[in-house]
C-alpha cells in the first residue's frame, strides 16, 4: 500500500478496501448491464414472445383446430417415437462408452473421445448426406444389400432414428464423463470384494451416483432429438402422414398459403418451443444440486 500513497491519487474514491462495491456503482457497470439486456431482448426475448403472440393471434380456437388435424397428430407421434428410440440408443451407448473412456485404457482412446464431439459441430445437412451415401437403397454402400434383405433405412423411420441419434450422440456422454471421473471406483471395488456381481455393483453403486447426470443428458438429448430438422429432412423425404416429423411440418405449412396453414405452423412451433424451454428449465433447476457436495 505504501507505493500507492506515493503516486498521484487515483480517480476512484479513497476507500481502497471496498473496490468491488465502488465499482458496482460505476457508470461502466450500468452501461454494460443495459447493453447486455438490450441485446438479449432484441435477439431472443422479444422474437420468442412474438411467436407466442402470433400463435394465439386468432384466438384459441384455430390453435385447437390445428392440433386436431391428422397430419399434425401424426407428425408429433412420429417425432416422439423417433426421438424415443434415438434417446434410448444414445443412453445405452452413452453409458457404456463413458465407462470405457473413464475407466479403461485402450489404443485410440484419445481419438475416440475427440471423435465423440464431432456430431456437435458438424452440419446436420452433412449428417444427412453421409447417411444417404451409405444407406440409400439406390446408391448407398450398404443400402442395396440391406434393402434386398428387406430393411429400408433411408426414407423410413430407421434412417430418421439414425440421423437423430447421430446429432444428439455426445450429449449423454458429456454429462456422464465428468461425474464418472469424479466418483472413482473405490465403492464399486468394495462392493465387488464383498461378493456383488458386476451387474449388482453397477445397479446399486454406479447408477445411483450418476443418475442426475444421466437425467440431464437424457433431457438434453430428448430436446435436441425432438427439434432435429436438417438431417431428418434429407433422410426422411418428408412425406406427410408417412415420414413427416413436427419440424418438417412447420416448414411445409409455413410455406403454404392461407391463414390456417400459417396458424398450424405457428402452433406446431409453439409446442416444440414449449417443450424445449421446459427441458431447459428442468435441466437448470436440477443441475445446481449436483454441484453441491
Amino acid at each position, binding site marked *: 500500500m505504501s507505493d*500507492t500513497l506515493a503516486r498521484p491519487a487515483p480517480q476512484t474514491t479513497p476507500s481502497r478496501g471496498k473496490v468491488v462495491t465502488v465499482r458496482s456503482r460505476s457508470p461502466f457497470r450500468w452501461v454494460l448491464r443495459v447493453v*447486455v439486456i438490450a441485446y438479449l431482448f432484441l*435477439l431472443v426475448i422479444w422474437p420468442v414472445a412474438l411467436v407466442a403472440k402470433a400463435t394465439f393471434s386468432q384466438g384459441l380456437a384455430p390453435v385447437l383446430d390445428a392440433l386436431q388435424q391428422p397430419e399434425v397428430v401424426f407428425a408429433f407421434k412420429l417425432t416422439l417415437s423417433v426421438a424415443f428410440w434415438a434417446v434410448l440408443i444414445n443412453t445405452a451407448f452413452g453409458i457404456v462408452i463413458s465407462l470405457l473412456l473413464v475407466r479403461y485404457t485402450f489404443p485410440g482412446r484419445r481419438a475416440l473421445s475427440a471423435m465423440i464431439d464431432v456430431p456437435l459441430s458438424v*452440419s446436420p445437412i452433412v449428417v444427412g448426406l453421409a447417411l444417404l451415401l451409405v444407406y440409400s437403397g439406390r*446408391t448407398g454402400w450398404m443400402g442395396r444389400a440391406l434393402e434386398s434383405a428387406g430393411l429400408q433405412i433411408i426414407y423410413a423411420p430407421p434412417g430418421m432414428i439414425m440421423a437423430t441419434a447421430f446429432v444428439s450422440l455426445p450429449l449423454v456422454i458429456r454429462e456422464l464423463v465428468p461425474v464418472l471421473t*469424479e466418483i472413482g471406483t473405490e465403492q464399486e471395488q468394495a462392493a465387488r470384494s464383498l461378493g456383488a456381481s458386476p451387474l449388482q455393483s453397477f445397479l446399486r453403486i454406479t447408477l445411483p451416483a450418476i443418475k442426475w447426470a444421466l437425467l440431464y443428458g437424457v433431457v438434453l438429448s430428448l430436446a435436441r432429438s425432438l427439434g432435429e430438422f436438417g438431417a431428418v429432412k434429407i433422410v426422411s423425404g418428408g412425406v406427410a402422414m408417412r415420414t413427416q416429423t413436427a419440424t418438417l411440418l412447420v416448414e411445409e405449412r409455413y410455406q403454404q398459403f392461407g391463414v390456417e396453414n400459417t396458424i398450424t405452423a405457428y402452433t406446431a412451433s409453439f409446442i416444440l*418451443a414449449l417443450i*424445449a424451454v421446459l427441458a431447459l428449465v428442468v435441466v437448470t433447476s436440477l443441475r445446481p444440486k449436483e454441484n453441491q457436495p
Partner: protein
Amino acid sequence: MTASAVAPLVERPDAAPSPNRRGRWRRRRTTALTPVAGLGLGITMLWFSLLVLIPLIAILVQASSGGWQAYWDALTSPQTAAALRLTVSQALLVTLVNIVMGTAIAWVLVRDRFWGKQFLEVVIDIPFALPTIVAGLVLLSLYGPSSPLGVDWANTRVAVFLAFLFVTLPFVVRTVQPVLLELEPEVEEAAASLGASRYVTFRSIILPALAPAITSGAALSFARGISEYGSLVLLSGNLPYSTEVASVRILSYVEGDKLTEAAAVASILLVVAVLVIVVLDIISRRVARHV
C-alpha cells in the same frame, strides 16, 4: 449458477478437470481392458462406426470419386463459391460479435447483480434448445415482413447474419462464464490498488485468464455458424449468389442428385468441424497443464 445446456466442451475425460472441480477430484485410475469391457468396446465401436465413422468416410470417398479436378470444379463453380464465401464471412463476423458480446454477457451474469438475472440465464440457452426451424420463425417475427420494428430483413444477408448470431449465442457465454466465476476478484483489486486503470487491469489480468475460454467459445461458434441450416430455411429465402449458404448448396446438390458435388462441399464443412474439435482438444490440454 453455471447451469447450462451447453456444458463447456473443454472438459475431457483425459484432460485434467476444470478448476471448479479441483478440490473434489480424485486421480483417475484406468485399467487395461477386461474381457467384458473389451466386448462392450467392440459393440459400441461397431455402432459408432456404422452411425458416424463409415458415413463420414463415405463423404470423403464420394467427394474424391470424380478426381481432383472434379472436386476443385465443384468448389469453384460460381454459385458454390459464392455460397462458401458468404458462409465463411458471415460466420467470421458473427464470431467476432460473439467474442465481444459473449464475454460482456458472461461478465454481467457473473459479476453483476440485479433482479431477473436468473431469467437471463435461461434466455442464453434458449437458442441452443430451440429447434432450428422454430428459431427461423422466431427471428422472422421480429425482423421479417410483419416486424413491429418496421424493418424487413427477410431474404437479405442481414437475415443470414441474424440467424447465425441467434444460434451461436450460448457458446462464448458458456465457455467464459465458469472461468470468470473462478477468477478471484482479489487479484484485480490488488492491481487496482497498485494504480492500474480499469483498462490495464482488464488487458493484463482478466483477458489473459479468459483467452483460452474465449478461443474455445469462438471456435465452437464459428463451427456452428458455418454448419447452420434450419434457421435459414424460412428466414433467408436461400437466394443463389445472395443469401444461399453452404448447407443449402449441399441440399440442392442432393436434391438434384449430384452427390459428388454435394460431398465436395460437405467435405469442406466436415474438415472445419474436425479442425475445431482438434483446436478445442489442444486448448483443453494446454489449460489442463497450466492449472
